[in-house]
């Protein structure tokens, strides 16, 4: 096993934990840069969605994972960023300007939502953000002069410095933004601001006694998280090239929360894993929907079951795979399984697999487990 010997205080929290990690991230980046020439356009499009979701995941990681503030209204921030983009583009604002401005504008909205959050905790905060999401959805639907109401807005393809961005161009734009957002998030987390978020999450009383202005940092967390989501919203609007209020409903907010629960709340890597899962689960389920009846058909034939039984089983299988709401049910089960068996999400799983190979052949199942936590009240 490799141990890193640190020789000066400056590298106590490096961007990359090791040279090897830096190498593999470089390989990943090279792969992503080469992707448009290597994979089908469908998968390239999925990759763009993954990046947009990953950006939202990073935003929620900062707010919920780092600062411990719940939000089930992040679709509203995505909507604000998306509509800001649509309107700005219509008025001839260039992309280099409206993309960051979408972040700033949504960040201000996030700051305002953060103000009531100063008095609310846990479930009450969740309800408040939910209410905010409904209000934003309603405003977008009613404010027809700007948003064109329920009919939605069309967006022309984005152009950078007068050049129209094609599929590949837009892919690279998303890649650039994703990398920058992740770098910004890493810098935040390893700084005084990030530590203050962590302090507020773990013990607000102690945070105040250490001189942390909890009100300021909570609103900062909201503003940052909303701003990042706003930028994702700008990309999302261009990706869809059409936006309407129902695209930013409650279920989208829930999807976002699922990203960080499934990916793992504590790490940024988790946000990316969660995004991959959420985006790739859909096509996977669609494939399964087609395949499962074929498999069951083959199975019943292989068992030489009577025709009546085969027909009954086949009818049952078709009813199940075509049942409305099946996807929600599966996702619900996945969430429950993750919360019970892997509270650290896909990222926790990843760390264990990594630990296994690092310690091979000495790895033992218990060794990779997180250390036992003592309850606060265990010894007094």
């Amino acid at each position, binding site marked *: 096993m490799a141990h890193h010997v640190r020789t000066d205080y400056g590298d106590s929290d490096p961007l990359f934990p090791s040279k090897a990690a830096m190498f593999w991230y470089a390989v990943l980046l090279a792969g992503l840069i080469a992707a448009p020439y290597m994979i089908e356009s469908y998968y390239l499009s999925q990759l763009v969605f993954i990046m947009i979701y990953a950006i939202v995941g990073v935003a929620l990681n900062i707010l919920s994972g780092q600062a411990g503030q719940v939000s089930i209204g992040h679709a509203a921030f995505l909507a604000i960023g998306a509509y800001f983009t649509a309107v700005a583009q219509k008025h001839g604002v260039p992309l280099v300007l409206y993309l960051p401005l979408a972040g700033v504008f949504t960040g201000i909205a996030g700051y305002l939502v953060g103000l009531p959050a100063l008095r609310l905790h846990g479930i009450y905060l969740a309800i408040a953000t939910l209410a905010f999401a409904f209000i934003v959805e309603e405003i977008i639907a009613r404010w027809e002069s700007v948003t064109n109401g329920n009919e939605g807005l069309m967006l022309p393809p984005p152009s950078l410095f007068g050049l129209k961005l094609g599929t590949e161009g837009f892919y690279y734009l998303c890649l650039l933004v994703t990398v920058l957002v992740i770098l910004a998030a890493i810098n935040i987390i390893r700084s005084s601001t990030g530590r203050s978020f962590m302090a507020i999450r773990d013990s607000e009383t102690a945070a105040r*006694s250490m001189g942390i202005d909890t009100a300021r940092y909570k609103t900062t967390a909201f503003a940052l998280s909303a701003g990042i989501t706003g930028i994702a919203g700008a990309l999302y609007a261009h990706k869809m090239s059409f936006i309407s209020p129902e695209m930013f409903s409650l279920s989208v907010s829930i999807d976002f929360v699922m990203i960080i629960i499934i990916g793992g709340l504590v790490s940024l890597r988790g946000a990316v894993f969660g995004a991959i899962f959420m985006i790739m689960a859909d096509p996977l389920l669609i494939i399964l929907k087609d395949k499962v009846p074929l498999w069951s058909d083959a199975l019943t034939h292989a068992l030489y079951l009577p025709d009546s039984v085969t027909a009954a089983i086949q009818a049952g299988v078709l009813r199940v795979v075509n049942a409305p709401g099946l996807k929600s049910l599966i996702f619900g089960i996945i969430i429950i399984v993750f919360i019970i068996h892997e509270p650290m999400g896909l990222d926790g799983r990843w760390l264990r697999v990594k630990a296994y190979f690092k310690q091979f052949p000495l790895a033992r199942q218990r060794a990779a487990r997180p250390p036992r936590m003592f309850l606060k009240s265990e010894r007094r």
Partner: protein
Amino acid sequence: MTFFDVKNLTVKFGGLTAVDNVSFGINEGEVFTIIGPNGAGKTTLFNLISRLYTPSAGQIIFRGEDVTRLSAQQIAGRGIARTFQNIELFESASTLQNLLVGRHRHSTTRAWQDILRTRKVRDEEVAHRRAAEEVMDVLRLQRYRDTTIGALPYGVRKVIEVARALCVGPTLLLLDEPSSGLNVEETNAMAEWILEINRRLRITVLMVEHDMSLVSRVSNRVLALNYGKMMALGTAAEVQGHPDVIAAYLGA
């Protein structure tokens, strides 16, 4: 000018007067201890001083400044740091991270600078790190540097909390029952550290403590409280021999 003064401090929770007209002064460089039976209002008094509670009446004067109306975070900014009776560490973070949070009042960078990780941010990080290492040196915590608090035993956490308070760079350190939950050896070590903090780092200490052997070992003066009222004030021996204190503890 006295270093730290509490004047006629009173707090009422509904009909209960938890701290009743308490006045005392602490000299610079002293170890001042508050004792009293359970429910005497010791921790409440602490929470009033660190401004987690708001007094109903009275004043708190720190180095000539009235700090009665400041917020908890401003109190830390004035150089008053505290620990908690039941430990309020950031449990999911490492020891080092906890100590670095203690350095918060010395950090001057804003969020946008942190995002860009400017030269100033990097320089400050190194300074914070150095300060945290120095505190770890004093309290022999290096071996727990990267361990998550949640995985550490209670006795170690207690010391880490003191270390975090020291990282604030206080001139007045408030220790709420530093020996509660510690075994005999850990309590002895704690007594040594309190003396070291007081003598070597020249930090004035105000503490709440039950363990009378620890109290008499480290305290210059002792204040006994009961039902929020002052019973006795003097050296450890004087207070222990005071008839009201004996009566309060033995229930006579």
